[in-house]
């Protein structure tokens, strides 16, 4: 079955999805709390949308479709407040962050349960590590061709979003030394990575997708774990590299940055995207994951080496007129402060050393999510 036709949506409208951690307030480990929380939330109308995830210790929320940063931020804050009030009534902690810093439960299960051991021997450590939490941003596109153009033009900016959202330094109780260790878990899956370099929607759909479908490996777009992928039924492209930030304010700012970038790219004043842009892609991506804002990236068109922090600041400056047009200058200001003040990952590390334990760090992340 070929993909459905690319739905038309209003250009530059946007929406945010966030995967959030549900944490026990006793030991700060992940807690299977989503059924109870969803029951409570379903009693009243919810701003936006909330859905369960396969793991009961995860909850996914998404905003409505917006065209402006202000209403998006307001809605995300309203969602946050509703969630927090519900979680308080049920003694559940809720926080952002791309990984939970320690997950003894999975270790214990593997240690004690023969059946889990079989599963784990099939998937190896992937199975153990795949409980990760991301932010997805959708951008509305007028056509499939526009979507593919944006998708490939954005490849140069992927490291920006990785570094600005990075909030997963700890994995399985240890400092991974990565700013975003979460992406390593995603990248390990076979259908992850980048989309093939195609700029024509018909060719993408009728040739590439049709062939892939015949191989039997994939059945729908959902089987691709690409960093950015088209979502034809919504008429959007979906950026998937961001860790869930520790605050919804950061999440909204990241979405606004992406919106401004897309407005800029759609003016088509930059050099057109090319397959060769991807020569530096994986290495830049690694630099962003590993070193965050301090990573060194190689620009795809000039092969110039620049500090990611400088590249982001320069791009933020370039985006100012677009942000003005889109009423999102406050979002860019937020990100500029983040570039100077350090990422969420840096903040988490400092909490670890202040609080003296990973539990203390999770507790701090819970307070930060609440806006305390």
């Amino acid at each position, binding site marked *: 079955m070929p993909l459905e036709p690319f739905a038309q949506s209003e250009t530059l409208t946007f929406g945010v999805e966030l995967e959030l951690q549900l944490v026990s307030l006793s030991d700060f480990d992940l807690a299977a709390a989503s059924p109870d929380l969803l029951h409570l939330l379903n009693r009243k109308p919810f701003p936006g949308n909330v859905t369960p995830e396969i793991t009961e210790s995860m909850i996914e929320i998404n905003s409505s479709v917006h065209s402006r940063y202000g209403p998006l931020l307001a809605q995300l804050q309203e969602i946050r407040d509703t969630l927090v009030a519900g979680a308080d009534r049920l*003694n559940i902690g809720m926080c952002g962050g791309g990984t939970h810093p320690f997950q003894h439960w999975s270790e214990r299960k593997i240690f004690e349960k023969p059946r889990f051991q079989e599963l784990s021997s099939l998937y190896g450590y992937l199975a153990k590590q795949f409980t990760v939490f991301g932010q997805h941003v959708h951008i509305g596109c007028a056509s499939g061709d526009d979507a593919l153009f944006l998708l490939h033009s954005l490849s140069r900016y992927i490291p920006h979003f990785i570094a600005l959202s990075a909030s997963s330094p700890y994995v399985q109780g240890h400092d991974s030394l990565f700013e975003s260790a979460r992406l390593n878990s995603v990248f390990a899956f076979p259908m992850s990575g980048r989309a093939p370099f195609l700029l024509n929607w018909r060719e993408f759909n009728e040739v590439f997708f049709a062939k892939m479908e015949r191989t039997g490996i994939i059945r729908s777009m959902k089987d691709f774990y690409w960093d950015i992928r088209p979502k034809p039924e919504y008429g959007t492209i979906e950026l998937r590299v961001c860790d869930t930030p520790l605050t919804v304010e950061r999440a909204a700012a990241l979405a606004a940055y992406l919106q401004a970038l897309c407005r800029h790219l759609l003016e088509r004043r930059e050099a057109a995207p090319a397959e060769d842009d991807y020569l530096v892609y994986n290495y830049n991506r690694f630099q962003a994951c590993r070193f965050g804002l301090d990573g060194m990236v190689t620009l795809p068109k000039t092969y110039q080496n620049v500090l990611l922090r400088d590249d982001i600041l320069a791009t933020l400056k370039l985006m100012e007129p677009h942000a003005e047009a889109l009423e999102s200058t406050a979002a860019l200001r937020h990100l500029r402060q983040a570039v100077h003040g350090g990422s969420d990952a840096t903040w988490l590390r400092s909490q670890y050393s202040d609080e003296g334990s990973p539990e203390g760090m999770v507790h701090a992340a819970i307070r930060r999510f609440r806006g305390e």
Partner: protein
Amino acid sequence: MPDLLTILTNLSWPVAITLAWLAGEFGQRLTGLPRISFYGLVGFVLASTQLGALPPPDAGPILALADVAFGLILFELGYRINVRWFATNPWLAVSGLAEALGTFAAVYFTAVALGTQQLTALMLASLAMSTSPATVVRIVNEQRSSGQVTERVLHLSAFNSLLAVFAFNLVLGFWIFHTANNLTSAVLDTVVRLLLSVVLGAVFGVVVPAMLRQLGNMAHDATVLFAIAIILLVSITFTSGLSAVAAALAFGLMARHRRVAFSQAQRNFGVLGELLTVLLFVYAASSLDWRKVAAGGVLALAVVGVRLVVKTLGVTVFARLSGITWRKGALTGLALTPVSVFVILLLEHARQRGVVMLDELRAMAAVTMLLEVFGPIIIQRALIWAREAPEQNHAA
């Protein structure tokens, strides 16, 4: 060379623990029922008054070990209690008060109606309020359950146990001072003792985490230091006549709020906790005399029934208001059924203080025996029906 009888007597406890552990492991594997139910059964069967394999319970080292085992469990329970939750969700506190006070009243009137003396009925009623923290913590850990029923059973069990300790000591105070006609000092004595116990536990809760911080590398050292601290705390409370229950709970609560790593690997206090749990449940059941259990008869059954109904109702009525479904509310109430170790240790220590009233409380012995075996099964089922225990744990 010591004679054979001495050798056998000396061996009785190690053998009993081995048997109980084996029964627990095989029983759990074959039936999917909780291990502690089997520990209790073995302890009861081997008790001095039944098969006579175990010596009669006394204030010896086994009672001290049982106290430490219970202290460890109470500490862990305290560590899992979020006091602030009762404030952010006042309906939870209301349901806790309703089920505990409701149980007190219902059991008291039932006992009096069945011809029990007033003071005995009061004592029975105060003991019946409590939900065995040991059983709750044990089953929650064994099932690795998580969810609202789990959380609420833990919180309500801590709450009603404290209420029970308070009420029991109050009644005990009356009992002791009744002869001296000094009731005010009974109340005062109880309140002061409990407060002192809480303060002592809280001091431990500040000092021990501070020491751990100094040591650094908490993941490795936490379990041992906490265990040692609890042994110390329990011993201090008993030599000074304070409440080990209140102190150990307060210790756990305080340590929790100091946010010191007490990681999941150390749930149940690891191997030490596992071992002492076997001993605790065997000991508790071995102190029960089948004659008293049998004599408890009708009253015991009535108390078990009334308690089950009132606790379930008390929690269910406020379920929606406190943010959960009727179903989960009812299951929470049901899961509050277990009585065991807690009551036995309270009685045993009352006996050590020279209060001979075990005979008059034989109904409680029967209640305890019934629920020592069935309590764990009921709470295990409640957690499974609430879908809070992972599927593969049911009979694995």
